[in-house]
């Protein structure tokens, strides 16, 4: 089996338009959540979210590109450009033929759907723009990355709700580890902050109207975010041979299914995924210093996740740190695991553990060190990133410091 390293990272999310801005915001415990700005916001019961602001897409993309790129594709391309630039890779010949893109995404082109449903249902028009389908299809972002960077190997999109990015990155990891691809571009993207997207989530009654406070006794729900995270997963020898700067090593993953309930999380499904990732990575429990939690800020997720971690780690659960950066960048749904992997890279590489902000009061059912409110310096050897999706689909990744 090949070893797999990360040689490039890129993002755009509510905390920043690139990785350095996002790291800075995570170190400072900034909150990217604020009042939503969108048409008909006054008709929403939930009026907050972690939107990407100061985003001038017409300065980044030309008119023809904008006609074809839904916002989730725009986010993915911006993040991919940053990641590929950092990696220094260019794709031609055999490298191009074997390398591909696996992205996580849940909703597809929700902005495009929303706008065009308005056109036909609300405005009563009988004609829509011809690019509606190529804009809204879930694989549009992966396809445009493949085109922009000449990636001709395996490319597709993975949809498993809130675990989409972790499932996608696990798939890319497997492809590089098995020797199938020397390089895979991976991560996730989502842009669900449109009227229909927020309205749908409102219906579930799991959204907070004021803040995302994971693990705090005062938590009252999740807050949606948007954005993308994209990484370059590269075979280690390939990366070393060209003198690449290595950000971290991906050492293992596991995926499990609760096979129980369409929305309620399962302690057992989560703990099997965490334990499975450790086993796949071949690491001892006490090597894990940091877990980026799924930590949605809902009553059910956070206590279930804490009990799963306690189950797996035993006494070491009290010594490791586990934070939820969703408190800052919101829940990016299908893109969330990708942005959260950045917190793992920051912990491993910079020795800074991102905090869980908005933490107000201890909850005995979440009695772990959740790094409340302030980032902490620590030497972290191994980090995990949890994702537990609706539908009971779980995916956990394990990373090691290089």
């Amino acid at each position: 089996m090949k070893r797999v390293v990360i040689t490039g990272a890129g993002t755009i999310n509510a905390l920043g338009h690139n990785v350095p801005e996002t790291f800075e915001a995570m170190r400072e415990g900034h909150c990217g959540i604020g009042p939503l700005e969108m048409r008909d916001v006054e008709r929403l019961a939930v009026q907050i979210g972690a939107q990407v602001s100061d985003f001038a897409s017409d300065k980044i993309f030309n008119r023809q590109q904008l006609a074809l790129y839904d916002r989730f594709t725009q986010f993915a391309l911006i993040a991919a450009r940053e990641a590929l630039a950092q990696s220094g890779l260019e794709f031609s010949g055999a490298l191009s033929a074997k390398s591909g893109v696996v992205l996580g995404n849940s909703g597809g082109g929700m902005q495009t759907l929303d706008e065009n449903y308005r056109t036909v249902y609300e405005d009563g028009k009988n004609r829509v723009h011809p690019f509606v389908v190529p804009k809204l299809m879930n694989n549009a972002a992966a396809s445009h990355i493949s085109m922009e960077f000449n990636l001709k190997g395996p490319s597709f999109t993975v949809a498993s709700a809130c675990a989409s990015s972790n499932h996608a990155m696990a798939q890319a990891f497997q492809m590089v580890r098995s020797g199938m691809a020397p390089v895979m571009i991976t991560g996730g993207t989502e842009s669900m902050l449109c009227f229909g997207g927020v309205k749908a989530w409102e219906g579930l009654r799991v959204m907070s109207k004021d803040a995302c406070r994971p693990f705090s006794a005062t938590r009252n729900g999740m807050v949606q975010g948007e954005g993308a995270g994209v990484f370059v997963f590269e075979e280690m020898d390939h990366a070393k041979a060209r003198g690449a700067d290595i950000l971290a090593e991906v050492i293992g993953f596991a995926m499990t299914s609760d096979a129980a309930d369409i929305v309620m999380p399962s302690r057992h499904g989560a703990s099997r995924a965490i334990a499975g990732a450790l086993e796949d990575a071949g690491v001892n429990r006490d090597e894990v210093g940091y877990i980026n939690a799924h930590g949605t800020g809902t009553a059910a997720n956070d206590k279930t996740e804490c009990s799963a971690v306690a189950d797996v780690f035993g006494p070491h659960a009290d010594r490791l740190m586990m934070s939820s950066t969703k408190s800052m960048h919101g829940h990016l749904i299908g893109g969330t695991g990708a942005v959260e992997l950045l917190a793992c890279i920051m912990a491993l590489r910079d020795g800074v553990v991102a905090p869980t902000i908005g933490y107000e009061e201890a909850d005995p059912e979440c009695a772990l060190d959740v790094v409340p409110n302030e980032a902490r310096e620590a030497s972290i050897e191994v980090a995990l990133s949890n994702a537990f999706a609706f539908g009971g689909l779980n995916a956990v990744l394990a990373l090691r410091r290089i």
Partner: protein
Amino acid sequence: MSVKDRVIAIVAEQAVLEPSDVTMESTLEDLGIDSLGLVESIFAIEEEFDISIPFNANEPENSEFDISSVATIIAGIEKLVDSAAA
């Protein structure tokens, strides 16, 4: 503006050209308009004139709407606009 000038303006915008660069003899291929550009142009023309153009991208040669040159496109649209007004 005449139907002709309005169509040329739409085609020119799609081709990222000046209207003066679009001649009646030009084909869409000459102008660098690909298949997606074609359906986008047809959409823009339908919106401009509030007409419905009978065009099927699967068999353009058998469509009632002749897209072989700018002149045939304009002629087809003039006919559709006239019948819509009638």
